[in-house]
């Protein structure tokens, strides 16, 4: 299964660079990130030891760009009919889903890696807290992974990449801004366990934890489960479409 996943992954990842989309997204990400950090984030007015103004907008930027990375993964296969070729090969659906997901996630990793020159340029002017910055990068990487998993799953539902883009964008925004704290007052929960459980569902809380250098196991488990759930749904969707 691993080899099949790799073959699908290589095909999809190569596919990004066979089209102009990859280069457009690389340019768009660099531009939006810098614009957000310098103009919207007030880069020069803040203490930049942790590059706060850069990381603050990354969730929203990924919510905007990841749907463009994932929209064609299944929708294009369905629209062009190649899904029939792919799914009649002797491979497991899980390997196809994982291959597609990892290709999108690696593309996001490339986007993040390309911001390294910015990091080192700033580092030459300011004393940076590299450990915190590493944790923030990790947080961004996990956020991108969650949005990629959601995007893959949404893409499997329809033939139109445009619908896949819009639906993924909406879901990503809901996930990233979703705050369940209102449930505590609404239902009058007073037990510590319930309060902590509800608070732990908040997506932004985990990113804040990582940004402040708290690389806890709970954060990693949270993000991984937020990826596994849509990927599992993706496999189910592909199987369901057969029947």
């Amino acid at each position, binding site marked *: 299964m691993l080899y099949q996943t790799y*073959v699908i992954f290589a095909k999809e990842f190569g596919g990004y660079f066979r089209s102009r989309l990859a280069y457009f997204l690389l340019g768009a990400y660099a531009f939006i990130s810098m614009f957000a950090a310098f103009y919207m984030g007030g880069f020069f007015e803040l203490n930049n030891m942790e590059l706060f103004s850069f990381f603050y907008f990354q969730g929203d930027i990924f919510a905007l760009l990841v749907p463009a990375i994932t929209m064609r993964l299944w929708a294009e296969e369905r629209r062009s009919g*190649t899904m*029939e*070729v792919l799914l*009649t090969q*002797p491979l497991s659906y899980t390997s196809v889903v994982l291959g597609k997901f990892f290709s999108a996630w690696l593309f996001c990793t490339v986007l993040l890696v390309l911001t390294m020159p910015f990091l080192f340029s700033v580092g030459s002017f300011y004393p940076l807290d590299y450990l915190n910055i590493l944790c923030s990068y990790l947080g961004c990487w996990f956020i991108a992974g969650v949005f990629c998993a959601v995007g893959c799953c949404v893409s499997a539902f329809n033939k139109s990449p445009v619908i896949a883009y819009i639906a993924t964008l909406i879901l990503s925004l809901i996930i990233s801004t979703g705050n369940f704290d209102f449930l505590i007052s609404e239902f009058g929960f007073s037990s510590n366990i319930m309060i902590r459980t509800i608070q732990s569902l908040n997506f932004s809380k985990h990113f804040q934890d990582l940004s402040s250098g708290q690389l806890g196991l709970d954060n990693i488990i949270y993000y991984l489960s937020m990826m596994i759930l849509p990927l599992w749904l993706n496999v189910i969707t592909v199987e369901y479409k057969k029947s």
Partner: protein
Amino acid sequence: MLVVKKLSKNFGRIRAVNNVNFSLKRGEIVTLLGPNGAGKTTLMRLISGYLEPSSGSVRILEHDVTTERQEALKNIGYVPENSPLYGDMTVFEYFLFIAKLRHMSDSSFQERYNEIVNNFELKSVINQRIETLSKGFRHRTAIAGALLTKPQILILDEPTEGLDPNQKHAFREFLKKYGENNLVVVSTHIMEEVEALATRVIMMNKGRIIKDSTAFDLKNFAKSQNLEDAFRQIINQ
């Protein structure tokens, strides 16, 4: 080699394939014949594992397509209608992708690659992106891709659509030869193809098999010298 038992497929209230039974063996070239909407494509999709049956089973070399999908599909080469392909790949990249998916070794890929490129005259377009190919070349690429692993069962949905008369002739000759040691299932509504190829004809209408015989028997059954007349007569009965 290929056993279809009580196979049915429903799409909502519509029954596209209705209680179909047959058994096919090596050395047969079987044409699925029928008017549009007869259920030929759905039947092929069920055999190739793309769709799951509502009831019944498909067994390929003793492997059930639903429960032992991967084992069963190792023995199948399938080309869907309109030969869908990855337009952003070159012909070579497509063959390499299929070879990797099917775990072909480098040496066997090299050997088969040379063979199919020569057989299907694809040398001139091998490094060309598929989206820039003519319909005929696309079609040949799709069929060549399906034949890369020398599958024991070859399933083709309207395979000569888009080919010129010379290519059609060459392709039919190739299929005849391939069908000597393998099983070939071809869906078509071109009578000329049935006459040129088929050792067995399965006629379908409204999801059911209405006739299972040789092309010769079909003509005799309909008391006609012309297969097209025989087809019309049987469908209208």
